[in-house]
């Protein structure tokens, strides 16, 4: 049966369109030499479907058209920072001198690679006002792990591993408590107050002799700058702990203030958020971590050092710079491809451009806030930073839930905002426009959301049915989890 809908083609699975006897790559002839694999040699069938080149292109182009993208429209996912991804960055990352070099080449043959790492390191240190940086973490969550491991190593160095408690605000990303728990810390939740900020007295009350540190996102996930941050860092240090800052929202303040001035000890930076490396449908990311001088010597291996223009890579933990290092986080030296993209972005903007970036991001968010307040319910009073949090109060008594509202936005041509996060706000809707949206684009978005809110009164049933204009309608997630079908198999898996 033809299930195509105009431009939206129904595309079967690779294993249904492909053929085990087909290939899209011409390879040299083999010489049938006697193999040297030993007794693990095998010529058994694997079952891989193949496609010719035109079929491959068609398969993936058809699939691509079922995706929303920042290139096609505003993508207001709060805390995810879906900003424009400049194509110059892609071009630079594909220079053969960056993309086609091996991580273990002789150091004399990769001086440019080490120079690039040194260059981006110096920018990140300068922008954050911090003493040191490690470039190796592969994504934000691994950056968090890296920062918290340095803290653990510092506690070990002080012989104070009895300090087991890490405080995490209730508005934090899930990765924060997951990271702390992964390292064997005991996670204690601290409350937000009615302004969406850390309740300083609750923070204070939770500090005792077991206090290891606190993980704070700043600006926080309510889109607000933690106004007590300096007080918090002072008390943290006085109490013998460390302040970890989740830098997921660094894009709100980059070029505008130096996080080092806030008294933080470690902060990861998501290059795929603040510095525009593409999200790629879920990665790859890159999560460098900056450190205060209190944590510098506990950095992971390896390190790049610039000795009067000669670049060396310090890899061996027995070397003097690394004797207190907590060790290696992953093989090789980090996400080079992402460093090049981020460096291209930073050079393009310069210090002046980056300041404009954060100011425009904050301006755009507050413009949405001011323009939407008549129809949606801001969760907190006052100005926001780069993102604006709404509660579901405006949906009260309509029978429509946050999820339904989000799905209705899809039919209007928009990717929904982040929903049901942060957990501190009922039915939360977190909107981050980023600085790369024009005023016209924001005005259209505002009009669309206001019209949807108006429609709530007249036709709330339509929200439950949304989305209508998508390649597929709302999916049964309960069935997916209850009877997991996680791969294609020859026999039919679902009785439709």
């Amino acid at each position: 049966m033809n299930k195509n809908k105009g431009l939206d083609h129904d595309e079967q699975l690779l294993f249904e369109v492909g053929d085990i006897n087909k290939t899209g790559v011409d390879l040299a002839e083999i010489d049938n030499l006697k193999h040297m694999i030993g007794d693990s040699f095998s010529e058994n069938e694997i079952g891989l479907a193949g496609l010719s080149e035109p079929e491959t292109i068609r398969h993936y182009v058809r699939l691509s058209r079922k995706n929303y993208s920042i290139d096609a429209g505003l993508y207001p996912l709060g805390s995810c920072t879906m900003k424009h991804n400049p194509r110059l960055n892609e071009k630079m990352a594909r220079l053969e001198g960056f993309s086609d070099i091996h991580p273990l080449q002789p150091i004399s043959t990769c001086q440019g690679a080490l120079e690039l790492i040194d260059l981006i390191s110096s920018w990140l240190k300068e922008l954050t006002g911090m003493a040191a940086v490690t470039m190796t973490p592969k994504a934000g969550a691994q950056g968090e792990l890296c920062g918290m491991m340095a803290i653990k190593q510092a506690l070990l160095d002080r012989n104070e591993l009895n300090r087991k408690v890490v405080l995490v605000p209730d508005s934090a990303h899930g990765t924060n408590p997951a990271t702390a728990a992964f390292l064997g810390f005991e996670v204690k939740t601290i409350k937000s107050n009615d302004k969406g900020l850390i309740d300083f007295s609750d923070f204070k009350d939770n500090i005792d002799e077991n206090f290891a540190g606190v993980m704070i996102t700043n600006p926080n996930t309510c889109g607000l700058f933690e106004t007590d941050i300096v007080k918090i860092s002072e008390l943290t240090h006085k109490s013998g702990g460390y302040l970890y800052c989740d830098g997921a929202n660094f894009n709100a303040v980059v070029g505008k203030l130096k996080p080092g001035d806030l008294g933080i000890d470690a902060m990861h930076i998501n290059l795929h958020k603040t510095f525009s490396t593409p999200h790629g449908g879920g990665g790859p990311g890159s999560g460098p971590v900056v450190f205060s001088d209190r944590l510098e010597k506990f950095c992971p291996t390896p390190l790049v050092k610039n000795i009067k223009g000669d670049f060396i890579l310090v890899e061996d933990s027995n070397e003097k710079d690394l004797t207190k290092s907590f060790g290696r986080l992953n093989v090789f030296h980090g996400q080079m491809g992402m460093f090049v993209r981020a460096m291209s972005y930073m050079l393009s903007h310069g210090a002046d451009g980056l300041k404009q970036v954060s100011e425009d991001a904050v301006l755009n968010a507050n413009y949405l806030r001011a323009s939407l307040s008549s129809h949606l319910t801001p969760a907190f009073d006052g100005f926001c930073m780069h993102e604006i949090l709404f509660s579901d109060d405006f949906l009260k008594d309509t029978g429509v839930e946050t999820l339904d509202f989000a799905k209705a936005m899809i039919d209007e041509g928009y990717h929904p905002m982040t929903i049901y996060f942060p957990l501190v706000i009922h039915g939360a809707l977190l909107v981050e426009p980023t600085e790369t949206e024009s005023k016209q684009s924001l005005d259209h978005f505002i009009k669309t959301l206001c019209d949807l809110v108006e429609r709530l009164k007249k036709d709330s049933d339509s929200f439950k049915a949304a989305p209508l204009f998508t390649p597929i309608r709302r999916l049964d997630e309960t069935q997916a989890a209850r009877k997991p079908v996680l791969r294609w198999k020859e026999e039919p898996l679902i009785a439709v």
Partner: protein
Amino acid sequence: MRYLPLTNDDREDMKKVIGVSDINEMFTNVPKEVSLDPKFNLPSHKTEMEVGKILSEIANKNINSNQVPFFLGAGAYKHHIPATVDHIIQRSEFLTSYTPYQPEISQGTLQYLFEFQTQVSLITGMDVSNASMYDGSTSTAEAVSMAKRITKRNKVVISPTLHPQYAEVINTLISSNEDEIDYNFSENFEVEKLISKIDDSVSCVVVQNPDFFGSCHSLEQLAEHTHSKGALLIVVVNEIISLGIMKSPGEMGADIVACEGQSLGNPLNFGGPYIGLMSTKDKYVRQLPGRIVGETIDMNGEKGFVLTLATREQHIRREKATSNICTNSGLCSLAFTIHLSLLGEMGFKKLSKLNHEAAIKLYNKLKTLEGFEVTNNSFFNEFTVKLPIDASVFVEKMAEKGILAGVPVSRVSNQEGDFSNLLLVASSEINSDFDRDNFIKLAKEVCYE
């Protein structure tokens, strides 16, 4: 600034709507003692042309693998990537989309991940796979962590021929107590010795195949003994192309498979981004870390895909999650799956054979070279050569002569033992007879002239 759409008039109009006259009024939460106009010792904005020039100059200081005969491996391999791959991954809809949280407008990503999971399951010979990890090393560490959760035991026995940096990563990420990990880096893979270490306190045995030194192993006997003690067998594959000509880890009894998938679709990139693969048996799926895509139906009964089993993950379970991983290697998994779809069964097996034959051809030439000894009895596309001189000196001198000849074992090992004369040499479909003849000719010069 070319990336910023707001005009100054826009900014003024918007400030009026907001009700502020100065942008800093929106930064009032920032403590007074913190400057909102700090000085940065950084240059100002640049044109596209200027940025291109700066970065190209830096890139040109490197010798890249297309310029010279190239024989490096040790966990990162140079292969030809079909032009189609890079074209497709640069499509806006793949490049600039987020993790597929809204399935109705993310079926493209979700379907290719479902296909990717199937391909990974097939080549590793396992039931299920997740939607990727950061790289082979973190995949391996996560596999160990998973085994510890499943068996509720702490001890980890690691084969002496696991990549030393992988062992370091396990040590950093998983161990809270160094005694838990048994690892003594050496060239000698002895099954009996490994078996003798497995007792009732062991959670898992970690073995790389082909191993770090390039040798290939049958693992059935090891698997049997591992299982008889209630432990799990984790098989690590660094060169995924080898699976076209070798028994799959699943066939040999693996419980969890952790691989570096870079060889398919992804360039060397000086070490990243790469793509970690992770697959296991059905019964352990709820202990897998990371994203997993599953099939389901929509409200009209049409087949579709969603992220599933999220109750394992940090955004739902917070401190009780199986891992803290969030973003993984989305676009790298797309490159992987496109390359493997282009190859298909036929192409994958042929590529595998071509790689193996390239290594055999070099091996045959090296055998005749005085003072050079290949230490492997078996290999796929990489083997270890004992040189008459220090391997680090050798590769530097070879580089001066315009050839990137291999990876000295001492480069990646900070373990005890004398590995100074050992060189890992990898071959692939990119190497020609010309490359190999050059290797032999220059190696002679470097060692004997």
